[in-house]
């Protein structure tokens, strides 16, 4: 589990706290938080890298990133559903 400052140190793309908070406000990142501040796990870190690469390195605009993430999330959700179904089927037989 990492805090915002740890995340900024860890990420090799130049971004600041403000940008990270903007990504959270846009719903691109959904870290949990405790009483002090946001906490980031490995999933969040991988997602931050992805968002930075899409938006900062590859220069996809805000709207484009919105759509890409939304499609990606739908894809993974459909897969998770599929996986549960397959597992349930296996247990059934």
């Amino acid at each position, binding site marked *: 589990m990492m805090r915002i400052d740890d995340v900024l140190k860890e990420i090799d793309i130049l971004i600041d706290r403000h940008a990270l908070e903007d990504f959270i406000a846009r719903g691109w990142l959904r870290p949990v938080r405790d*009483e002090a501040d946001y906490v980031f796990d490995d*999933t969040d870190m991988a997602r931050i890298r992805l968002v930075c690469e899409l938006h900062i*390195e590859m*220069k996809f605009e805000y709207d484009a990133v919105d759509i890409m*993430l939304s499609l990606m*999330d739908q894809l993974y959700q459909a897969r998770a559903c599929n996986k549960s179904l397959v597992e349930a089927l296996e247990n059934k037989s």
Partner: protein
Amino acid sequence: MSKNPYEILSVDKGASDDEIKAAYRKLAKKHHPDLNPDNKSADEKFKEISAAYDLLKNKDKRAAFDRGEIDAQGQPQQGGDRQYYRDFAGGPQGTRYSSSGGNINPENIEGIFGAMFGGRAPDTRFDDMFRQQQNADIHYRFDIGFMEAALGAKKQVTMPDGKNLSITIPEGVKDGQKLRLKGKGQKLQDGRHGDAYIEVHVLPHKFFIRKGDNIYNQVPIGVHEAVLGGAIKIETVHGAVNIKIPKGTNSGKSFRLKGKGIKSGDHYVDVQIVMPDKIDEDLEKAMKDWVEKHSYNPRNKNEKESTS
């Protein structure tokens, strides 16, 4: 034997920095592993592209490579065994990012099975299956008031197991935010505790609309206030403040109260002119007198603008 970075990015030896950047972007968009969830070779390809770009974007490294002082591997391998988002998306944490925001509801799956197997009651093994998937972390959700979310609060909550938890709601918490309470989850067999995760739902306010940390609200003003101006009292999350309405204020005019929103956000007041419930003789007479002396039609102004 690794390939020449110029060949990897398909650029000339004499390519400019911008050309290299453009070539990298083009290839990265095509080969990023998260944009190719099922293509295992995208990983290798992307690593190769990143490494080539890493070398060529750095003037010193590129010059050293051109002089033959370092080979294409003469740079630190970027990322190493990097984990991409796709490596997590299917895991339990990835459900946080699923589009509906929730976990897959086992009941839906049972429903599907019910239909598939001719309406037979779901097998108890389904329940077992989903129970096995749970770990020591527990997840709850509860509603908090708009003001509690705006200003932060301490709350006592009774959990389904009867335990009381004291929760500090941070100032400016957003709708759908998950709060982690370390060690408040279920007890594992080895004595350790999981964490409790609480998803907060911020209830709407009667007058305030929240967008990020800014607050918007509509405030009615009387005709006399719109014409003559004056001071009006505005409620904000930080208490009431007085604002001055200038003479001749129109409906839809917005006033910003700096720093009166959530945390460092602002409060925006949109004023709407509201007629008295009853137009009495005095008002009618005053208007009639005024119109007789002045030819005023706000639509004339519009017509002039649109034809010019």
